[in-house]
């Protein structure tokens, strides 16, 4: 097992710049997710780490040793593909054995018919068989070892692909959206299993996904990628609670964070004309953006900051999401309410909304987080 380091990697396909200088260090035994919308370059980055693509510039190092330009087969990494990429003509056992056969048997020993009778082949084959059995036991697919991939369900294929990856001890595991072909229920189950597997193997995992829930639930750290760069790489809780960029705040969190325009003028911060707080001399006057998670909004009868009508409701049982069309505004905000408050919410109901500014995130017009401004506004409020 080993750590990984990626420094200023760029990748161009013709005129398109897919990666614009990505730097990321992954510690030994860490689980890092690369998450981002389609086309953000996350799969390309993973393939560059794997060695299946060459970077236009930049360096990749595994365990401190530079591997840029080294071919994928020599990098000792395992990869699970989105399509699983199982060899259709081989049984499950043979599929799992391929990485071991390719590495521990010589070309002659792999030959059909005469291969098994060459010196040393028998012991090697026995070792491979026991390693395959161990991997199959770990993934609970021992009963399927004689089947062909065509006879397996999506979830079983996914396990076989995992088995093929973990049968040898690679420097790191690379997983390219391995759950995206599974149905929702199986995805939740496999998610937990992969996280458990990571703890059990204590190995380095790099996991590519477009699903923020997978990234949030499994990772030690999440690298949010957009437009070919890593916007932020932090622990899931930090990514959610303390995003540095408005795009990170908008991408992580479901339903999406509410973004409202606030104005700073004469050291006063106002939202739709209501004064929220004061901020003296820490920021330029102008328009800022206030991010509020759905759970930060509260239903309020007295002195609401905003009022509006319920335009859409989603009842998930344990919680209720309501979209509120703000009065006199084109914007809609999403609010999370407890089931006990459901009686107050029905389509067309007039509601008042309030929030604690401590729960708000302030971004400037370019989308950068303004932490000093937040601190100033809050301190001023406390003083007031």
């Amino acid at each position, binding site marked *: 097992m080993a750590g990984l380091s990626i420094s200023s990697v760029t990748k161009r396909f013709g005129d398109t710049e897919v990666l614009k200088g990505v730097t990321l260090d992954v510690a030994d035994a860490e689980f890092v997710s690369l998450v981002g919308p389609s086309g953000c370059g996350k799969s390309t980055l993973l393939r560059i780490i794997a060695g299946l693509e060459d970077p236009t510039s930049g360096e990749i190092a595994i365990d401190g040793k530079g591997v840029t330009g080294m071919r*994928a087969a020599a990098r000792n990494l395992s990869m699970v*593909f989105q399509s699983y*990429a199982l060899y259709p003509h081989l049984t499950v056992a043979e599929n799992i054995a391929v*990485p071991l056969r390719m590495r521990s048997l010589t070309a002659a020993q792999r030959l059909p018919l005469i291969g098994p009778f060459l010196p040393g082949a028998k012991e090697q084959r026995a070792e491979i068989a026991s390693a395959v059995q161990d991997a199959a036991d770990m993934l609970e697919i021992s009963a399927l070892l004689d089947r062909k991939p065509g006879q397996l369900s999506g979830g079983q294929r996914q396990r076989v692909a995992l088995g093929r990856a973990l049968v040898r001890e690679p420097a790191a595991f690379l997983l390219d959206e391995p759950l995206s072909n599974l149905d929702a229920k199986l995805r939740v189950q496999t998610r937990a299993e992969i996280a458990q597997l990571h703890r059990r193997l204590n190995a380095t995992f790099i996991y590519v996904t477009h699903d923020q829930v997978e990234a949030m639930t499994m990772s030690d750290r999440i690298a949010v990628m957009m437009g070919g760069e890593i916007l932020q790489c932090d622990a899931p809780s930090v990514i959610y609670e303390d995003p540095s960029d408005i795009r990170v705040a908008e991408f992580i969190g479901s339903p999406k964070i509410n973004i409202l325009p606030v104005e700073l003028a004469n050291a006063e911060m106002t939202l739709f004309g209501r004064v929220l707080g004061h901020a003296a001399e820490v920021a330029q006057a102008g328009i800022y953006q206030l991010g509020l998670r759905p759970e930060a909004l509260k239903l309020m009868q007295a002195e609401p900051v905003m009022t509006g009508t319920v335009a859409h409701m989603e009842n998930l049982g344990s919680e209720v999401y309501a979209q509120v069309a703000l009065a006199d505004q084109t914007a809609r905000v999403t609010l999370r309410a407890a089931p006990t408050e459901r009686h107050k919410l029905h389509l067309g109901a007039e509601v008042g909304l309030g929030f604690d500014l401590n729960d708000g995130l302030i971004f400037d017009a370019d989308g950068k987080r303004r932490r000093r401004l937040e601190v100033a506004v809050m301190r001023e409020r406390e003083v007031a």
Partner: protein
Amino acid sequence: MAAIDAPAAARAPREVNRQARTAWGLTAPALALMFLILLVPVVVAGILSFTNYSLGNTGFDWVGFKNYDRLFSRSTYEKMFIATFTYVAVVVPVSVALGLGAALLVNSLGRIGDIYKTIFFLPVMATLLAMAIVWEFMLHPTIGVINQTLELSCGTFLEVVPFLANGCADGFPLWLGDRDYAIWVLCFIGIWQGFGFNMVLYLAGLTAVHRELYHAAEMDGAKSAWERFRLVTWPALGPTTVFVVTISCIRAFQVFDTVEAFWPQGGGPNKSTYVMMFAIFEKGVQQNLIGIGSAITMLFLVFVMFLTLIQRWLVERKVHY
């Protein structure tokens, strides 16, 4: 419940009958055609192979297995089998291997591959009869380009090659007129003409190979092109290979037009290229010996049927994942 079920149950068989009638009605034209243009001629040929019928005769005599007996006892037919099986045994493996090789090479090229694809496929599209005439000119013992090119080597260091030395001393082969060379020339032209078709079939097969499997093979440690070929390409081409081999076999059994163009008088020097299709034509059409012609035809059908059965078995058992 019973009161409702009874009429429903009574109606069901009638419904099934009606559907069955419609199904038969819709299948009838195809069935009729299959009987008329496939099965009836085969049965007729089968019957005729036990007679001494000639076209124009009012009647015929049953001769039992005499026609078949002749096929397996006369030296002409022994030569026929030797020529046919030599041709099949050479042309099928070589044209399949060349087709696969060409397909892999063309597939690995970008846009230039299309040019090669066209070049290799040209002989398939060309009329073999016309091409045979061109080959005949080229292979002419004295004025053909091939022997003239070979003669250029006379007096040079190339004479160390025994074939060239002998040619310079005693004259180069007659090719089409030489009983030792005729069948090999025929094989060569068969390969030249046929491998482009196999290449196109393999190219189609290659498009179905999942790209990601090559990446998986690379990650699994398959370093050489040969290992990737063994692990991914060759198994994925299994169904294509079965089809290509079967088609090549049947086409090789059917070789006729080159033989007819080169040796219209009958089967080449010393009957060394007297292939089955030509024998059928010569006996059944030229000499109007319908009985013996039919017997060769039946034998031909047995071979082709046998090949098709092997193909079906392989496709269902071995290469269907």
